[in-house]
């Protein structure tokens, strides 16, 4: 049982929760994630730890409402509890002074990007952040990203905020004028696929933080398997970060759609249930 001690509404679809989890807060490093189960009936879902306070013993998760589980989670208020949280899971981000780091965050991918940007800056890197979303509502954590970046470029698909364009355009612009030593790419699968193509084209070593379906998160079931460089890896224990040039994104996207039909159905049922309360 973990108590929620803080809540921040970033936008209609994106919520941040501060949750009591002293051991996790203490052991956590940038790049780690947790698996959360809201209640007895809940699914186990992976969520990146956006930040942690080891003194207060809390971790912060930033959640986008996509399905039943995330909706349940984001409807909780301070004082409520979450039934199960386990972590910190995954391999921590490899941080060193690379030189100039290009941090690319798409949509809610900016939340897991934030701790990495912070760590990279603290390690002495020059950090250029390119963040993008479909529209203004889905853009989050811009100020927090700015705090740890030497430069920030913001784009939206529809131009409702910042520049109009796709994240890859922002990346290309930066790459044209700066020598980039390392890139970090986090966002929806399709965004990561195209962003990786850009960095690969320019021979920039880059890592992508993958978000696959997970069940246990401890390496037990293989639901999160991806092919990286021709080998099968488990995102929950070998990842979540992998060499972006080696990831088979097409396979990953195909596997992400595995439960789409059930998910959509469940989300509809849940919405009906909530509406009829």
């Amino acid at each position: 049982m973990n108590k929620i001690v803080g809540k921040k509404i970033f936008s209609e679809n994106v919520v941040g929760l501060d949750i009591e989890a002293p051991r996790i807060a203490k052991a956590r490093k940038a790049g780690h994630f947790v698996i959360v189960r809201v209640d007895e009936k809940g699914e186990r879902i992976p969520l990146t730890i956006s930040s942690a306070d080891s003194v207060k013993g809390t971790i912060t998760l930033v959640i986008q409402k996509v399905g039943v589980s995330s909706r349940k989670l984001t409807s909780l208020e301070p004082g409520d509890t979450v039934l199960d949280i386990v972590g910190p899971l995954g391999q921590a981000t490899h941080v060193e002074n690379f030189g100039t780091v290009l941090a690319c965050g798409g949509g809610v991918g900016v939340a897991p990007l934030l701790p990495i940007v912070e760590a990279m800056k603290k390690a002495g890197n020059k950090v250029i952040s390119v963040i993008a979303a479909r529209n203004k509502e889905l853009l989050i954590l811009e100020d927090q990203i700015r705090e740890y970046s030497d430069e920030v470029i913001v784009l939206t698909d529809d131009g409702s905020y910042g520049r109009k364009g796709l994240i890859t355009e922002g990346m290309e612009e930066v790459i044209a004028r700066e020598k980039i030593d390392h890139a970090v790419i986090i966002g929806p699968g399709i965004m990561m696929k195209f962003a990786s193509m850009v960095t690969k084209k320019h021979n920039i070593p880059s890592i992508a933080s993958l978000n696959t379906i997970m069940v246990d998160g401890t390496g037990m079931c293989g639901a999160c398997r991806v092919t990286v460089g021709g080998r099968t890896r488990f995102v929950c224990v070998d990842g979540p970060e992998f060499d972006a040039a080696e990831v088979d994104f097409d396979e990953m996207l195909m596997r992400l759609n595995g439960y789409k039909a059930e998910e959509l159905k469940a989300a509809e049922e849940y919405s009906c249930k909530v509406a009829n309360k």
Partner: protein
Amino acid sequence: MANINTDRTEYLKQERSAPWREELRKSKKNKERTDIHRVEMPSAPPMERARSYVEVNMGLTVEEAVVEASRCIDCPDPTCVQGCPVGVNIPKFIKNIERGEFLEAAKTLKDTNTLPAVCGRVCPQEKQCESNCFYKIKMNREPVAIGYLERFAADYEQNSGNISVPEVAPSNGRKVAVIGSGPAGLAFAGDMAKLGYEVHILEALHEIGGVLKYGIPEFRLPNKVVDVEIENLRKMGVKFETNFIVGKTATIDDLREEGFEGFFVASGAGLPRFMNIPGENLVGILSSNEYLTRVNLMGASRSGMDTPVVKGKRVVVVGGGNTAMDSVRTALRLGAEKATIVYRRSLEEMPARVEEVKHAMEEGVEFLTLCNPVEYIGNENGRVKQVRLQKMELGEPDADGRRSPVVVEGSEFLIDADTVVVSIGVSPNPLIPQSLPNLKVTRWKTLDVDPDTLQTSIPDIFAGGDIVRGGATVILAMGDGRKAAASMHEYLQNKQ
């Protein structure tokens, strides 16, 4: 690894000479006993049970149990005990059933077996105690149904509400940690608690029980049976902490700093294995771990539960062990129109328990033996739609005496499948070895331990169960737990 019961002969003789045992033996002539036929376990009707999660084996009635117990002739040298990995005093518990002392029978079981309700259901008795029964070896007849009787006694105790809680020594002020709450961990915890230690079981998942909960389905081992045993341990003072991954949530060093003096690694063999053949990453192809965890642990088959599971119409399960049987029978219960086992050797060579195979056949599972997948073919959405199989034939024997499967050239054919469950075995969980580079590991990636003490290459760390044995049985895991408790106790006493 040595069997615990080698010096039990004196003790067994002593128990056997108790007056009530003598009296009971005299009460019936041996010929009367041996004339009785072995009881048949009533099982739920196949076609109905294949669509529900009711426990398939329904258990013996009191009358059936007493009659079956009377078949046991209380041998002067009980060979059945030699077949038991933990040396349960089998004649004693069976004779207690015969004289109507069912709670005493349960107590006898618990002297050596921490989880009798579990073992009575999942032990392969036909390879252990029952295969050594006098009836089998001397008369070539059906052995005494030791397994059914064990289950009967354990269930009776559970249902009576009079569950015996073993005596616990006064606290000695020392703390030990158990990593994993499966059968090995639970058995270890019970024994250490009895010795007065403060025992903390640290479990990675959100439920206690390990493979007993996530691996073995409801229709073979109901979760509530496991919960009663766990509750008993709580009563003995054992502390449980879930959502705790040693090596991630806290390291062994952290725990040492918190005062833990000994560690028992019982994290099991929970790493799924795949065949690494083309198409294996298509949607709809899962490891048996994922499939069973979704259903058994996350309740995916129950309405109102959020976790989904692939509900295929044409399910193919690759493998021939108990997990494969569990998976294919689960597929039926999830509504499959056709559920098929694909196994590369013959039916006789399947590792699964004969009873499980029988139940599966009764329920309508199709068996394609001497077949092996070489490739999976998907549709335009990336979902599996067919499996390419090739026929096998049996070649020369391997080291274990089983004939090895050899490909029949040019025998490939396709079958339809929208779901495939890969159930070819599991490997030891790598989390602990990864977090402790000094821990010696064998070529099979299991933990290397001293066979007599179960101590690892790190002195305050002991290990047992599947993490040491590869995927083995519940009873062996329990035996390890008990053995490690004895060794760790000695180690800690000497350390002072």
